[in-house]
């Protein structure tokens, strides 16, 4: 196991190096450079100014030297400074954008996976039902909806026609006037509090599964759940820091509803169909027949036996999707005025801001690599069969 993990890690590092190199050079060979693009529109800037700018950004050095310097700094934790927002360090910019993107897209991801999984489960279970074709076609229709257009229609519906939800942005400036926090602090707090609550939930469930005694297990499961949810609310209502921040967190949450809804509608069908396939395969397994023969209620057969095993590929794809949340946001972030990593990705590439673009790309790469790695580990947790094959 240790050897396997080590080998995987070495492979990952190597792969990452190659990825970094390819991205860097790909961006480098783009026509023009950051300075040319920036100054092309301003005839009042004399040529000398361009040279000054090039020198300042280090773009006057030979390619290989630039690359060597970049890599050297990269592995010392210095991602350089953005060309376009000179002299702002890339790390700063990413730190500013990442929390927003993470919170929005993780919330959307969890929601649409949850919705998709439920829908898929029922679709497989009630196979041949009249609704099946309707739901499938409707789901696929939504799935292939042209995202920007659909998003605008939803904004129009919910924010203009019904006037239930805010138009766009992630906060209401007038409410945030003189806020004691920066939005990122709130995003981070939201992220951590929710993460801790979820981990507590998951852990209590996991421990409950390990216990021999059923009663203890049930107590643990529900107790842990209640504690996690209770803790979550206690934090926002009982703890001073949470109370103060609650209004702001609520505002952000309120602004999140529409993008999460849109992303859910667009994406749930993919998960639904994956779950359906996976579940249909599971339903053909002998142990489903065993479970039925044991006289278990249908609900237990469906949820405990069929869906639990069918969860495997769904969970895998969830983890891989987590790894891609950053680049999924290009359109959504623009439409909902939610400037995050997706916006960075596009704008840095278009303005040939190499350090920022490579920084953002490498972040995505690292997330994806970790995602793949976690999938392997997760598979072991979810499917006991894998655990052993790994040993052997």
């Amino acid at each position, binding site marked *: 196991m240790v050897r396997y993990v080590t080998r995987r890690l070495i492979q990952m590092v190597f792969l990452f190096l190659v990825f970094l190199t390819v991205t860097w050079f790909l961006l480098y060979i783009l026509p023009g450079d950051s300075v040319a693009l920036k100054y092309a529109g301003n005839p009042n800037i004399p040529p000398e100014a361009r040279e000054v700018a090039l020198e300042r950004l280090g773009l006057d050095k030979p390619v290989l030297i630039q690359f060597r310097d970049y890599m050297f700094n990269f592995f010392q934790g210095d991602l350089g400074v953005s060309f376009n927002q000179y002299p702002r360090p890339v790390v700063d910019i990413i730190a500013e954008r990442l929390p927003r993107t993470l919170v929005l897209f993780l919330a959307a991801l969890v929601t649409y996976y949850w919705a998709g999984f439920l829908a898929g489960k029922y679709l497989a279970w009630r196979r041949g039902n009249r609704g099946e074709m309707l739901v499938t076609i409707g789901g696929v229709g939504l799935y292939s909806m042209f995202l920007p257009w659909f998003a605008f229609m939803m904004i129009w519906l919910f924010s203009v026609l019904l006037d239930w939800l805010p138009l766009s942005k992630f906060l209401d400036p007038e409410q945030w006037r003189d806020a004691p926090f920066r939005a990122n602090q709130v995003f981070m707090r939201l992220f951590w509090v929710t993460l801790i609550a979820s981990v507590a939930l998951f852990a209590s469930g996991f421990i409950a599964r390990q216990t021999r005694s059923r009663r203890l297990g049930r107590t643990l499961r529900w107790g842990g759940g209640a504690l996690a949810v209770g803790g979550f609310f206690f934090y926002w209502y009982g703890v001073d820091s949470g109370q103060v921040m609650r209004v702001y967190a609520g505002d952000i949450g309120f602004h999140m509803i529409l993008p999460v809804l849109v992303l859910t509608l667009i994406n749930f069908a993919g998960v639904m169909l994956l779950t359906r396939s996976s579940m249909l395969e599971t339903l053909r397994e002998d142990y489903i027949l065993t479970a039925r023969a044991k006289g278990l209620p249908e609900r*237990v057969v469906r949820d405990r036996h069929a869906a639990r095993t069918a969860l495997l590929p769904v969970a895998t794809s969830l983890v891989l999707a987590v790894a891609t949340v950053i680049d999924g946001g290009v359109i959504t972030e623009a439409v909902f005025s939610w400037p995050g990593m997706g916006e960075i990705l596009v704008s840095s590439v278009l303005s040939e801001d190499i350090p920022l673009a490579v920084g953002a790309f490498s972040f995505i790469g690292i997330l994806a690599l970790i995602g793949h790695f976690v999938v392997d580990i997760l598979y072991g947790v979810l499917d006991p069969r894998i655990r052993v094959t790994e040993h052997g």
Partner: protein
Amino acid sequence: MTSRRLPLEISAGQARLLEVDGLVMRYDTEAGEVSAVENVSFSLGRGESMGLVGESGCGKTSVALSLLRLAPENARYQSGSVLWEGMDLLELSDQEMREYRWAEISMVFQGAMNAWNPVYRVGEQIREAMDHHFDPPLSTVETSRRMDRLFNLVGLDPAVQNRYPHELSGGMRQRAVIAMALSCEPKLIIADEPTTALDVIVQAQILEELKEIQEDLGLSILYISHDMAVIAQVTDIIGVMYAGKLVEFGSTRDVFHGPRHPYSYLLLSSIPSVTGPRRRPVSLEGTPPNLLAPPAGCRFHPRCPWATEQCRTDEPPMMQIGPSQWAACWNSEQVPEMGEQLP
């Protein structure tokens, strides 16, 4: 065609536990109606063991699943009844049927590996059955006490219950399956190919143990197998199925020594005998019929060396041949004695 219940004198005096009477079950498929079980009747008493043999696809598993009403959703019961202690299982509501399952009739599935859900521990899966069938529910202590007893009964270390199915060997898994089948104290166990995937030594051990358990607990067991040898070893009564029909029925001893249906004969002859008189193994030519459009008359006639014109048109009824032997063949007398060379 009228259905006739077969009087079974072999185990006379015992109350009939299970009586299957004229069971007809068909599958609706897009290609048409598949006649999977055609007018099958038999009965089984308490403590008896019976075997159903036949080639793959002959409908024996369909019969077994019918007893639990677990046939796939496209199955339709045309006629007939499955009487369990006089009550027709086919008439029960889903909820009532669920209560019957495992508590009265349990099943040992073929391919024990696949019968286990890979993501739960063995113990959990057995406990689950007990949780749903004991009223009032068993206490935690009682459950684990029972569990230990079950594992001891099938010759497994009780510690095995905390392992995952894939961590067990084939034999252990099969024993655990038997333990699971016994967990709710059923009266009948259906053993569907209980030993197919195992090596011969383990196979023998398990069959031996099953037999012992049956005797100890006074269970009835319905064995389902394509393996004549297995059936011969452990059953009192045997039914031979071909293409959805029961073609021969009788005491195991009679059928084995003097099969009166050509199919039984050929099936038995195809097994080389180690102990008996040396004979040329006979091969069964051709393939089983397409059940979408079964042949008219006797379903075996296309492959039968003794088929006559009558066989092609008229379906033979079950006819009593001996005191405890029935066969559905117009020409049962023509079937040679075992050991005789074929003409």
